[in-house]
């Protein structure tokens, strides 16, 4: 297996709609996301960032092209395999946090393990330890509606990491937070998520958090315009 590359996109095209309303959102993406680093995907609104990471995660299917993740071609997998693959290898962080309101913080963080097949009780023990690391030791038993945005995003980070995925995909993780909370969340994400065998992909508009990137890919109009190591 190629130890350096987590995700490799080759000629990925995505069309939405058919006929006269057909819109080519991704115009042939060639992109390699390295392992052991945090890679930002930036670009103007509507350029196709969310579409691209959805295809990488197997949540959308590409019109053409191939996506290899961890040396497996997700674009060729059976749907059932894709679901299993997501459960085992991917962690997700969303702009809207997307916590389950009926579960406490620690239960929410445990969900990824439960999805893999753990019992809720044993999953909660692992999730609790991770929440402690994220500075949530006092809020573990609160429910999402009792937590601030920053706190909710920490729970979401715990959920994305608790099952030790090889790839973490995050879409605008700071967009719903104020500057201060956004920076804190990014600091924590960097501390906890960074690992030699893990790739972290962050989609963002928020240039205040660019310093947290190892690599920055810039997208424009359905193409990757540039991919560079981050200077700062």
């Amino acid at each position, binding site marked *: 297996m190629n130890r350096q590359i987590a995700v490799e996109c080759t000629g990925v095209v995505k069309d939405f709609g058919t006929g006269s309303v057909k819109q080519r959102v991704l115009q042939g993406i060639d992109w390699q996301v390295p392992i052991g680093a945090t890679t930002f995907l930036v670009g103007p609104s509507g350029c196709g960032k*969310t579409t691209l990471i959805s295809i990488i995660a197997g949540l959308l299917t590409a019109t053409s092209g191939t996506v290899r993740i961890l040396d497996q071609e997700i674009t060729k997998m059976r749907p*059932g395999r894709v*679901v299993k693959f997501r459960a085992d290898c991917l962690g997700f962080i969303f*702009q809207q946090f997307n916590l389950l*309101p*009926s579960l406490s913080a620690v*239960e929410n963080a445990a*969900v990824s393990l439960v999805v893999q097949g753990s019992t809720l009780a044993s999953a909660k023990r692992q999730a609790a330890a991770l929440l402690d690391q994220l500075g949530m030791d006092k809020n573990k038993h609160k429910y999402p509606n009792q937590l601030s945005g920053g706190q909710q995003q920490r729970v979401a980070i715990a959920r994305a990491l608790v099952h030790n995925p090889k790839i973490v995909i995050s879409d605008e993780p700071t967009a719903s937070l104020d500057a201060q909370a956004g920076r804190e969340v990014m600091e924590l994400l960097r501390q906890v998520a960074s690992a030699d065998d893990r790739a972290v992909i962050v989609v963002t508009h928020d240039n205040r958090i660019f310093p947290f990137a190892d690599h920055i890919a810039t997208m424009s109009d359905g193409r990757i315009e540039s991919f560079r190591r981050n200077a700062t």
Partner: protein
Amino acid sequence: MFAIALKMLFHDRAKYLGLILGVAFSTLLINQQLGIFIGLITRAGAVIVDVPQADIWVMDPGVKNLDTIFPLRDTELGRVRGVPGVAWAVPLYKSNVTIRTGNGELEASLLIGVDDSTLIGLPPEVVMGNIDDLRRPDAVAVSVDGFRKVWRNEPLSLGNIAELNDRRAVVVAIVKDSPKFTSSITFFTRYSQALQYTNNGRNQMSFIVAKSAPGATPQEVSRSVVARTGLQAMSAEDFRYKAIMYVVQNTGIPISIGTVVGLGILVGIAVVGLMFNLFVLENLKQFAVLKAIGTSNMRLIGMVFLQAAVVGFVGFSVGLFGATMFFETAGKSPTFQGFYLPWYVAAGSGAIAAAIIVLAALLAMRRVLFVDPAIVFRG
């Protein structure tokens, strides 16, 4: 995963309670109404049940139930007794009489005249008094419920005097009879005595009740009786069924009860189906998140069905408990006396509740199945 499904369900208290109440209400309605229905219609055969010794009933060929009777000629008794396979046969008299209660009010009452010598036709369960005292002049036995209705607020006692069609009757025994369709007051007396109370002259045999000899079925013997006498004869069981079916076919009871039961089922389907759909709809984003994280469709369907099953089980239990309580308490009042919840009604309503739940879950399942996990990245 199933723990999460349950937490999701219980989290939305209002909807959870609404769902439970929907199923419970439906179950209660179905059980209560069908229990009453069965209790009511079986009363149509109560007079037959009260003569357990006889297994053959003989009557005028035109008789369709126990209420519209045409008297048999006295000579028929001898002819029936002469039919091979008939072990014994005795006359039974049945008529309506007017009775004046303790406080002067008039009530409709049933008068049963039983065989003078054997007293066959008297219900087996004697609550108070001695049956043999019926052989005394003017002696009658009264049903427990009848006693309570005629002598309100008086403890059960013997020696009370009633007026049956303005003639004196002395209560010498109190018996427990099956609740009747029309009146809860029943008096029993000797056949000859009964004729005096109604004083209608000859030809007063309402029925001949008989017993088949060992080795012959009541159906076979009944056929012989029909062949030999030209009367109508059938087994006690068949007559009871016929009397019950008469009520089913000729009264509004099945329609009115059927309407309520149908409404119960409809309300159940509508309320539970809609509310469960709403529940799943409101939690659709959560299902999408679980899907994105890597939960298979099978698992998600399992979650939905578990949620539905819990709603169904709890709702059904509450409803059945309510219905049981109803029959426990109401079953003691004279109006509903003898009413109970037949096991097959409970089982049937369980099947209906299960069907409602499966339907609701199937409807809701589609949403979960087709929700696009890619929406998790959208606001």
